[in-house]
């Protein structure tokens, strides 16, 4: 097995000492999957809580503050409530696809989490085409949305799903190109190597002007990828009910909801890894304590998540033609120009290195 599963060496060695190799690696994979699932189900719930709190503060409200201290158990209670709800469906819905859709969405967003280096050691799957893998996986989620919208036999859901398709196909391009711009600097798609390169300064500093432009484009396109406001045409409440998940209830709805927040985390985590040095501390101040890498990584990610929430509670929703104009007339040409600019910067050795 050349997959480097390196969360903790001790468990790894212990497992291999008591079991034959094949079974041991399968056990290890299952263990890691369970750990990730547990962590990110809870993390997703807390992201929902964070969103609600931040939204409240933006609107001069208090936000959830009844369940648990400071409302900290609110989303747990919501999840429990959703688990206990009846799973309803529509008549003449395509039952198989209807039931399959939420799993598509949640599985694809959880899969993307596997390749992130949370710290030097805490890195489940260090694949050598990391960035490509992320791009590919994050666009599979839209299939779940399309399936859900189409199979639930509801015109609102269908319109929502189709809008989601349009949006993802267009903005995927910008996400990919802006990440490609940064790959020009790193010369590698492997996330651990991308971080290695950033030991001489985070990429947003190394690549200066084109990197900042790429970051701005990435943030816009990334927000659009997660279907969040101001790009939430997919579930525009005032027009489409709840959009593609209108007909879902209970836990299946919760999967869509959780996937949206995990996707937001993923987009922020990609930005943190590629532009802001992932688990690297600024100027290497905590280099001697590798465990703190997780803190830095989560810190950077949460700052970017906060930025996306800030977008959401500031900007009004775009119309579909404005959405497409923004992508095809502005982001895409700028992105291509930016790519050339970055290539020049790298070719002429104009990157800033410490």
């Amino acid at each position, binding site marked *: 097995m050349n997959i480097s599963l390196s969360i903790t060496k001790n468990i790894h060695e212990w497992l291999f000492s008591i079991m034959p190799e094949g079974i041991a690696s399968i056990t290890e994979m299952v263990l890691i999957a369970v750990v990730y699932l547990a962590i990110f189900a809870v993390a997703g719930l807390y992201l929902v809580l964070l969103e609600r709190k931040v939204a409240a*503060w*933006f609107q*001069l*409200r*208090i936000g959830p503050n009844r369940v648990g201290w400071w409302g900290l158990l609110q989303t747990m209670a919501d999840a429990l409530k959703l688990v206990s709800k009846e799973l309803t469906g529509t008549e003449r819905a395509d039952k198989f696809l209807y039931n399959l859709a939420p799993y598509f969405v949640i599985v694809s967003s959880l899969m993307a989490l596997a390749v992130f280096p949370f710290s030097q050691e805490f890195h489940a799957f260090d694949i050598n085409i990391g960035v490509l893998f992320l791009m590919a996986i994050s666009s599979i989620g839209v299939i779940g949305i399309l399936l859900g919208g189409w199979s639930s036999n509801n015109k609102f859901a269908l319109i929502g799903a189709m809008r989601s398709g349009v949006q993802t196909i267009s903005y995927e391009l910008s996400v990919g190109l802006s990440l490609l711009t940064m790959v020009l600097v790193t010369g590698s798609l492997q996330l651990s190597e991308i971080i290695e390169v950033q030991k001489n300064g985070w990429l947003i500093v190394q690549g200066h002007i084109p990197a900042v432009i790429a970051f701005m484009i990435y943030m816009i396109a990334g927000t659009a990828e997660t279907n969040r406001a101001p790009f939430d045409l997919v579930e525009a409440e005032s027009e489409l009910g709840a959009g593609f998940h209108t007909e879902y209830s209970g836990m299946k709805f919760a999967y869509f909801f959780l996937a949206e927040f995990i996707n937001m985390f993923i987009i922020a985590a990609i930005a943190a890894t590629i532009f802001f040095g992932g688990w690297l501390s600024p100027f290497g101040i905590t280099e001697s304590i590798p465990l703190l890498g997780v803190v830095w990584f989560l810190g950077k990610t949460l700052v970017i998540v906060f930025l996306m929430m*800030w977008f959401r509670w*500031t*900007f009004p929703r775009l119309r579909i033609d404005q959405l497409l104009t923004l992508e095809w007339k*502005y982001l895409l040409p700028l992105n291509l120009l930016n790519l050339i600019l970055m290539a020049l910067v790298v070719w002429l050795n104009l990157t800033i290195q410490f």
Partner: protein
Amino acid sequence: MSYFGNIAKGIKTLLTGMSVTGNYFLHSRKGAITQQYPDNRETLKMFDRFRGEVVMPHDENNEHTCTGCQKCEIACPNGSIEIIWDRQLDPETGKKKKMIDKHIYHLGMCTMCGLCIEACPTDAILWAQNFENSVYDRSYLTKVLNKPGSKVKAGIED
């Protein structure tokens, strides 16, 4: 180069918007407008412009300023006000004069439009800021606004 001009303008306006909301975010601690109602029942003070119900203020001599002109009754679009009046002998002048017997106000029908208060020429009725108006029987929602034994303040009709 209006293309790049547009981009610059777009970014500028977006940042302006973000600074406004960011400012609210930073000041949300002090300015939270949420009232945690049952908890602050003792201290909660409603805003002056809050429309709780229509009341008729009385002064210390149990006198109000309602002349029984019925303008409020006519102004009310849904008939929430009924005025029962009578011509009585004024003890001072000895002339017959219109006086209210009961100013009946149906809170359950009132839409809080405020037209009656606008219409009243003597400001006899006002908005009260109370908000705990729920009762167990709707007959309690029919209120007589003038207190028993009250009379109109002297000189108000002149």
